[in-house]
């Protein structure tokens, strides 16, 4: 796999209340692991939602796999783990297996049926993520970390080429978080899956991501973690001490 997976040109998301994103231009190649970081309200989630066509783009352009995001339909190539976990209805009666199975719909055409092969695939994915034993539980009964993994399984079950994760570790304790990052890195390395990961753990993501995108309404930095650590703009932004802490945690 090679070539451009994501490409934006002067992307802007401006609404009646003002601009959330302005003038964002970057390209992500196949196999990249991009950490999207920035302060709260910097438009990180809006950026990935714009790429997925979930929010409207007001200027510029964004493309996934070469086709425009607003008319994108090759959903089988994409897996998405949303930030808004808490929006899941706790009384929703779906089992873990049923929930993960929904991720396979992107590979199907009308009428979308879940076959036995699909169920096997779901089981295999659950096994990979170490949650096979809870497959028959209702998602409402799980802990935050388990739910996160179920949704990750849902995002991965269709073997996507691009995985977009929005704050996947928000509900996790530090130890689980660490394991989670290692798992994503492993997926990126072994399967060549392109990863866009939104987070505010700048330091942690730096250990794994191949590229960093620092966002604060505008794109202030896009490049490797090393460059990020030695960028004078970033030291001006954070102060040298914080930058040092972020870049040399281990």
């Amino acid at each position: 796999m090679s070539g451009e997976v994501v490409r934006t040109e002067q992307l802007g998301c401006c609404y009646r209340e003002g601009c959330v994103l302005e003038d964002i231009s970057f390209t992500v190649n196949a196999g990249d692991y991009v950490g999207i970081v920035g302060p709260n309200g910097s438009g990180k989630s809006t950026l990935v939602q714009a790429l997925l066509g979930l929010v409207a783009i007001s200027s510029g352009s964004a493309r996934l796999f070469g086709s425009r995001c607003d008319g994108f339909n090759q959903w089988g190539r994409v897996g998405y783990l949303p930030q808004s976990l808490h929006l899941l209805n706790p009384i929703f009666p779906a089992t873990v297996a049923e929930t993960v199975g929904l991720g396979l719909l992107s590979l199907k055409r009308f009428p979308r049926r879940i076959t036995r092969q699909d169920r096997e695939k779901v089981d295999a994915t659950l096994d990979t993520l170490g949650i096979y034993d809870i497959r028959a539980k209702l998602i409402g009964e799980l802990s935050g970390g388990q739910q996160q993994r179920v949704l990750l399984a849902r995002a991965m079950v269709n073997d996507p080429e691009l995985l977009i994760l929005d704050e996947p570790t928000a509900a996790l304790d530090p130890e689980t978080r660490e394991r989670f990052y290692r798992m994503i890195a492993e997926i990126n390395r072994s399967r060549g899956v392109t990863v866009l990961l939104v987070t505010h753990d700048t330091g942690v993501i730096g250990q794994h991501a191949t590229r960093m995108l620092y966002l604060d309404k505008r794109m202030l930095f896009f490049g490797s973690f090393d460059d990020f650590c030695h960028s004078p703009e970033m030291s001006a932004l954070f102060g040298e001490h914080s930058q040092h802490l972020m870049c040399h945690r281990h």
Partner: protein
Amino acid sequence: MDILEILSYGFIQRALLAGVLIAVLCSVLGVFLVLRRLSLIGDGLAHVTFGSTAIALAFKIYSAASLLVSLPVVLLASLGILRLTEKARLSGDAAIGIVSAVGIAAGIILASVGGGYNVDLLSYLFGNILSITREEVLIAAGLFCVVMLLLGLFFNDLLAITFNEELARVSGVQTRLISSVLVMLTALSVVLAMKLVGIMLISSLLILPAVSALQLARSFKACIGLAALQGCCSVVAGIFVSFITNLPTSAMIVLINLLFFGCACSLRRLLTPGNSN
């Protein structure tokens, strides 16, 4: 009174048949509607039907033909509810409230403008489960087949949008289309079934079996199945109990549904002692 004698009456046979078909239909739709927070859509659309029947009667169109006026109006109203929740960012209950109030208001205004009717509007609007004709059993069967077929074809899409609309979109589900299919199937069922069994029964069958099933179900498919089962049993039991106790049939069916709901709640408590807080 023995069961064979009860079953010997044609109107009881038709009530059982059409009642069970409509109950299953409503219960299954109800699971999706309750989870999408559109539980009251049955009542809302009934009010719109009232308004649209007023239009039909003002033009002296009676009974069967009035459906030709009601059906498109109610289908549009159901889509209107959906658009209100999307565009105006209203919650489902508020959107339903708006549409239902407008429906009633339109009916009342038309009634005063038209200077009255030749018949009593409300009595023509609402059917009674005990007065179902043979043709209406066929209508119920046809409706059942259409709704079940479409639910079957779109089952996973419906499950996906009910679970989470954003995720469904990113899975390539055409969320607007599927939501529209859901509310339009509901509208179709409400308009037709209301003429057959009355609105009280429809709106309670849209809610009660679904909420009971949500108490107990261990998977989504089981939830659908439990809801359908309760709907079905409540109608059969309701008709027989109404026979034995000499009380109105529809009201009895509603009460039996409530009883099932109570049982489901207590059973859930018993099964999950740790979660009772």
